[in-house]
């Protein structure tokens, strides 16, 4: 008779579905990796193919209006062959005693430190703003427009001023103020905004019946925040963290470039852009380094999201 019980039948199919879902997730991951590799190969093929096409036109001494004006020129100065770009990683540039990939790695770590400090500070500020605005509706009405307007200020544009300002005004701290910390301020500025806006939306996203449940337990503000509103806002927050992680890298790189900070990928890119005519492949290699760093932090956030949100996020994945 027990097999007739619909409750039991229901349970068995649920367990089955769970194990199937796990297998599907694994298959999806394999498929994603394969497509990514295929895509990279396609991209490389496109680059090489276009280059070969352009070279052929050049060889034929034809003047073709599109290549070289709307589309880039294809000579080795403008589009170094992929083999040389990747070969550059293993070479030792003049006046250095390390191979290029190691140099880039160290620069990337420097940039990552600025970005990480900026990200963490931005996260704290963003969450504080979200909490305050979520608490008082009047404040949300009054301040939210300015939080949004703040993003139309290209603060990144005044990185040099911020560096001077940082040196001048932050000597209150027990440690010596350094230029990279000013760059971190720029990363902070780009980071706090998505966290504040999405955090606010997330804190307001708890379902009404769950709020009533907490009220029926006479849970206080802190308990409701910690056990309901914060966990409910996690999917929103992680969406913001993904944007913020990328922005913090952009902020750090651009900050380095315009602030004249020694060290970091941004500085490296600027230097290679300067020496472009003698080593175009090094510029391409350093830009690739920046791309890898950006994707790396993005993947870190996704990994943390999987760990934190875990199985519950199933319905709310990106």
């Amino acid at each position: 008779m027990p097999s007739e019980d619909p409750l039991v039948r229901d349970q068995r199919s649920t367990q089955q579905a769970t194990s199937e879902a796990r297998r599907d997730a694994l298959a999806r991951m394999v498929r994603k990796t394969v497509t990514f590799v295929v895509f990279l190969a396609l991209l490389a093929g496109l680059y090489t193919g276009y280059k070969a096409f352009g070279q052929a036109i050049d060889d034929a001494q034809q003047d073709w209006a599109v290549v070289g004006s709307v589309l880039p020129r294809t000579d080795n100065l403008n589009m170094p062959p992929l083999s040389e770009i990747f070969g550059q990683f293993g070479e030792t540039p003049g006046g250095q005693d390390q191979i290029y990939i190691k140099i880039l790695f160290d620069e990337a770590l420097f940039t990552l430190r600025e970005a990480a400090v900026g990200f963490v500070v931005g996260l704290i500020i963003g969450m504080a703003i979200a909490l305050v605005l979520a608490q008082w509706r009047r404040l949300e009405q009054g301040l939210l427009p300015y939080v949004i307007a703040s993003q139309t200020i290209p603060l990144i544009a005044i990185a040099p001023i911020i560096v001077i300002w940082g040196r001048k005004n932050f000597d209150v701290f027990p440690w010596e103020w350094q230029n990279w910390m000013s760059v971190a301020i720029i990363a902070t500025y780009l980071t706090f905004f998505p966290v504040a806006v999405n955090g606010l939306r997330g804190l307001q996203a708890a379902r009404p019946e769950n709020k009533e449940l907490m009220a029926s337990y006479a849970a206080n503000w802190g308990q409701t925040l910690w056990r309901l509103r914060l966990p409910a806002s996690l999917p929103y927050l992680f969406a913001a963290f993904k944007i913020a992680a990328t922005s913090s890298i952009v902020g750090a790189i651009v900050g380095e470039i315009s602030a004249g900070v020694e060290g970091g990928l941004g500085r490296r890119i600027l230097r290679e852009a300067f020496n472009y005519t003698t080593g175009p492949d090094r510029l391409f290699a350093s830009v690739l380094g920046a791309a890898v760093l950006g994707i790396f932090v993005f993947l870190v956030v996704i990994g943390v999201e999987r760990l934190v949100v875990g199985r519950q996020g199933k319905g709310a994945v990106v």
Partner: protein
Amino acid sequence: MNSARITNTAKSFSAPIVAGLVIFGVWQGALGLLDPDGFVLPAPIEIVAALVDNWDAVSQGARITGFVVVSGLGVGIVLGVLAALLVTRFRAANETITPLAVAINAVPIIALAPIFNNWFGLTSPRSNQAIVVALVFFPIFINTARGLTQVDRSQIELMESYAASRSRIAREVRIPNAMPYFFTALKLATSLAVIAAIVAEYFGGRQDALGPIITQSAGLTRYDTAWAAVLAGTAIGAVLYFGAVLLERLVMPWHLASRNGSHE
């Protein structure tokens, strides 16, 4: 009903105005404490004065940068939407390409500026436009593709039960569903475009654009002029942002209504 709505509207306007007065008051007041010489962050009044003094240079810079921003934004939006429409027609293409675009979106595209300069010419605005286009394209593409595909299954089935054609389903269900996604990306793209243009101008392009004005003024420690140029950039971004908000309200009045209805 009407009088209630008027008081509500008045309230929703008064709060930002009061907050704005407080912010500028604190700014002006805090300068005395933080930065007594008014060296780095000038008072709002000084910035406005510098803007008036340097009106010709700044307005010329704003025109040049504004053109790069608007043209890049326009091309980026068109390409992004077209790509989304194309890719979402094919399920397999969508499932492989869209996640890749999400990953590429994590690349600091601004770092491409020096390469683009070499490709499109150091003094030509085209390299700056290319940066803006690349930066705008990805969020628009990703969000629009998401909006076109993350549709309530039952709405599609309803349309299919009426034997509606694919294009009809797109017009009635998919495109309206994609609207809020698109506008979210558009609002993000407006401020991204200004940042991208100004930063790209550091690397090359015309020397009388806003980016060079900012760096040159800062180099000469004329910070009020630099800030006046930043203010001009902010104005471009703000006009575009609020233009996007206005457009959103015009195109999707139902979205606004549902948000207002959710007040407790």
